[in-house]
């Protein structure tokens, strides 16, 4: 049976069902117990599974994220929450030098089925150290799968896939998609979610809107800005195709290239910083592989290489938005 669920409940349900199925799955993190996770991703788990499997930790991210690797080496399947991705810098060594590389360095002899879930995104004035997206960094270093759901259906299926994957998965949920009530979230992100467990394969982007004039490649919360822009552009007779990447690693190159082959125009929209990140990668992919199908220079919108400012008008100015997409697509036509 399917009901509409907000994303945070879909994530919690996925974890809960996997914990029921598999006793090696457990959760660690800050405020993931009684609080249910600052962004709700572990709601209800403590009550269901108790403090042995739902472990509140000290503010020692290196210890418990490195700890996840150690536990995985003994057959456990830990899920750890890094409260905000912005905090990655206190524990990045364990993530990218160990969790990401142990499988390779052991030539596949050590499996690392660890899920690191973390909150991304801006839009509510949480300023420079609590509003970043940063998934580009994790996609850059080899050995991590990178998952970025944009709605509750995907969130559940991708989380179950992540837990069952024998490789480390970075799972990025956008605070502004969780449907928490106290944080603005597009209604469209809370979709029907089957009660039973299901998986969504990694590396399959989703064409969330078909169109012939321009391909907008994006992910996470920007999917909605793109869709809203597409609706508005429709009125002007511009037909926008919107691609929700769903995972950055593996990247669904085929869907992107097929779309651009059809539309001949590419716009990449990203809430991460502009340079040396996702937007460059997607444009390069297309330029390398579909140069001749481009009818116009590919373009991109992202945070213009500034830290996220606090004050509302400033923050709004630097974030990608429907308005900016509409404007740029019009220029591209």
């Amino acid at each position, binding site marked *: 049976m399917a009901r509409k669920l907000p994303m945070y409940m879909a994530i919690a349900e996925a974890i809960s069902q996997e914990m029921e199925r598999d006793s090696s799955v457990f959760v660690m993190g*800050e*405020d993931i*117990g*009684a*609080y249910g996770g*600052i962004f709700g991703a572990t709601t209800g788990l403590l009550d269901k599974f108790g403090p042995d499997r739902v472990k*509140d*930790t*000290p*503010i*020692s991210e*290196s210890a418990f994220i490195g700890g996840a690797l150690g536990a995985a080496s003994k057959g456990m399947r830990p899920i750890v929450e890094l409260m905000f991705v*912005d*905090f990655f*810098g*206190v524990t990045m060594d364990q993530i990218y030098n160990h969790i990401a590389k142990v499988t390779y360095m052991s030539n596949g002899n050590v499996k690392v089925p660890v899920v690191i879930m973390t909150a991304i995104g801006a*839009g*509510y*004035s*949480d*300023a*420079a*150290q*609590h509003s970043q997206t940063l998934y580009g960094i994790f996609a850059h270093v080899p050995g991590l799968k990178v998952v970025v759901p944009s709605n509750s259906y995907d969130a559940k299926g991708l989380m179950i896939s992540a837990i069952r994957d024998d490789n480390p998965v970075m799972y990025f949920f956008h605070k502004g998609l969780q449907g928490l*009530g*106290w*944080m*603005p979230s597009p209604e469209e992100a809370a979709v029907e979610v089957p009660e039973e467990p299901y998986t969504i394969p990694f590396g399959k982007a989703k064409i969330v809107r078909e169109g012939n004039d321009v391909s907008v490649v994006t992910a996470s919360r920007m999917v909605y800005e793109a869709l809203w822009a597409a609706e508005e552009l429709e009125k002007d007779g511009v037909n926008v195709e919107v691609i929700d990447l769903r995972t950055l690693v593996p990247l669904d190159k085929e869907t992107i290239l097929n779309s651009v082959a059809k539309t001949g125009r590419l716009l990449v929209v990203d809430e991460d910083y502009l340079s040396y990140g996702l937007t460059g990668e997607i444009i390069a992919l297309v330029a390398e592989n579909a140069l001749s199908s481009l009818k116009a220079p590919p373009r991109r919108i992202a945070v*213009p*290489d*500034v*830290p996220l*400012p*606090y*004050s*509302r*008008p*400033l*923050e*709004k*100015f*630097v974030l990608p938005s429907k308005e900016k997409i509409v404007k740029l697509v019009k220029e591209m036509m």
Partner: protein
Amino acid sequence: MPDISEQTLLSLYKTMFKIRYYEETLGKIYYEGKSPIFDISAGPIPGELHLSSGQESSAVGVCVHLKPEDAVVGTHRIHHFAIAKGVDLKAMTAEIFGKRTGLSAGKGGHMHLFDPKVNFSCSGIVGASFPQAVGVGIAARQQGADYVAVAVGGEGAANQGTFHESLNLAALWKLPVIFVIEDNSWAVSVPKDKTTSLSRNSERAKAYGIPGVYVDGKDVVAVYEVAKEAVERARNGEGPSLIEVKVYRLRGHFEGDAQVYRPKEDLEQAMANDPVKYLENQILSRNLQSEQELKELQNDIIAEIDEIIEYARQSEYPEPQEALENVFIGGD
């Protein structure tokens, strides 16, 4: 009571009351525009807001010993230290309101208050203050100066790796740093006994061969005494100290926190240990001030703060495109 002049005591009280009134006022304003449905992004103060009500004594008892050239490096819950350190309160408030007249013209916000004139800074990353305060200590040594640095952290922050690295380095190099751990028993929803293998962080000073003291923050004078010694030690080149101040969090972790995780008794205990009330009672019972005098003094402060808030409210927002400025000094 130890040797502290009536005048000093009264001035401690004034600052504590100022902080309390300031925080409680922000705590009200924060909800403006956020009802009927609480929306963190709305209102005159959007984003997270961590208030320090109940923890005033630690800031005031420490900062009274500091000069403008001394540094305080703080955390996400830091208005009390900012005020006690003498940060320009108009500019700080305007910053919290996201206005162009703010300390950072709206770029920083409540967790990112910088006032170089009084060497105040803070950040939203737990445990990040420790190394930076150590760095100030290094600078003092390099410059042969006698300023000192105060690193502030919660009891939760004391489990971050930076705590260890910083104490070791400060002890090793005998740096003029005072590490102040505010033990308010909670790291968001997780109680201290679920995060800390030892009941007192002050004991951890032993791991670095430096003095460590635990002090009850109910009584600001106790904090004053302990901090006095630590600051003097630091200023005299005798090296760092660790002070854990037991304080109580009178409000949620941040505003909007329903505190479902928190036992009722815990909040009651917090109220019973209110350092502002405690000092008020001392002042009255020792007849340092009459009730009437105290009231007047409070009213002066209230008027001052109200005016500051009004200033912040009336100030202009920055122009959107200012967002692109000052990533680098001198442009790129």
